[in-house]
């Protein structure tokens, strides 16, 4: 999973030469052999490295605050989202739904690495979810649909139908 995400990120960034990755430990943590230094270990660490290599620093946030928010969501992805139980899933989506209430992206007013990796991490949860349940998380599904249509991002993942035609929703707000 993690390796496919990194390869999708490489394509998104337009990096010409694909890197070769290995994994370490039971949790299959990705490792990137680095020509001019010690190997890089960890999904977040390698993803940030690729972004720097592609000279796209804005993907890590455009201010000190923005960068901290991006890092926080990247950490959230690898500590909370990965390996979460069914019960955790509900809490995570509920919280994210509230957070996204007044936001288009996770950090600031532009697409960042945080959007990419929370999207990658949430995709398997959304796949399994019946449409009625998706409707409980309207802000998440709105954001999800937006990110999955972000140009060049969705390489290893199938597109998902997350939003029903509004005509069929009978609920009043």
């Amino acid at each position, binding site marked *: 999973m993690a390796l496919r995400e990194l390869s999708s990120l490489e394509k998104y960034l337009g990096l010409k030469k694909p890197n070769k990755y290995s994994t370490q430990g039971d*949790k299959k*943590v990705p490792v990137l052999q680095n020509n001019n230094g*010690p190997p*890089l*270990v*960890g*999904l*977040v*660490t390698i993803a*940030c*490295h690729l972004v*720097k290599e592609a000279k796209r620093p804005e993907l890590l946030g455009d201010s*000190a*605050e923005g*960068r*901290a*928010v991006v*890092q*926080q969501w990247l*950490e*959230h992805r*690898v*500590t909370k989202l990965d390996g979460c*139980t069914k019960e955790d899933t509900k*809490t995570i989506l*509920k*919280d994210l739904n*509230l*957070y996204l*209430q007044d936001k288009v992206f996770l950090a600031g007013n532009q697409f960042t690495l945080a959007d990419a990796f929370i999207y990658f991490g949430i995709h398997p949860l959304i796949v399994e979810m019946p449409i009625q349940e998706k409707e409980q998380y309207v802000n998440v599904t709105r954001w999800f649909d937006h990110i999955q249509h972000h140009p060049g991002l969705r390489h290893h993942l199938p597109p998902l139908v997350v939003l029903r035609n509004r005509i069929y929703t009978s609920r009043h707000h």
Partner: protein
Amino acid sequence: MKLYVSEGNPHCLKVLAALDVTGVQCDVHYVNHEERVVPYLSRPALPALLLPSGLHLFSSNAICRYLFEVSGKDCTELCGQWLEWEATDLQPALLQALHMAVLQGKGSDVSKVLQGPLNYLEQSLSKGNLPYLTGDAVSAADVVLWAALYPVLSDSSQALGERKFVKTWFDRGAVMHSLQSAAQKVLQGKGLQGTKSYMQKQPAPQSNQCRDTQPCNSSPAEGEESER
């Protein structure tokens, strides 16, 4: 900016130490463990930093990283790698160690639980042979890892065993005023037991529940798994 912390919460030790090391100006508020400071999180998450923009940071590592960045010390790639390792590898082991030592009175098992992460740390420090994790100066990574390990290592140095590189590096942090005053505020001079009120509110560590109930069987079970 406002920083919300609670007594006994080991993650708050990280941010209070980082605040002191960086000298960033910030109001510190002490609240209960159960206080919901971050409006969109259903479970209490402390520490939390209210940023000038009105957003909250709820990850202690992201807060430390931010404090270092605004004081002019950017987190390098290596620093980021240590922070990721701390969150994904060290924290689950530490949570289990604290659970055993503080709530179950099995302090003697702490060194076994921390064996893996401490060996990794020892190996990395011995390779680089530098005074700090990322080089010649204190980084966010050092402060985060010192503070994370402080409750356990300052209480029982036995957990360190023969790991002399970790010991030298840890002692460098343990004598710092910033770390000691943060520890005094969070642990109230009660050492590891200072985290009790916090630990009682935490769910039992998931991944190792079988070990909690049958600690004596853990080694043979592991052996079986690796043979498969």
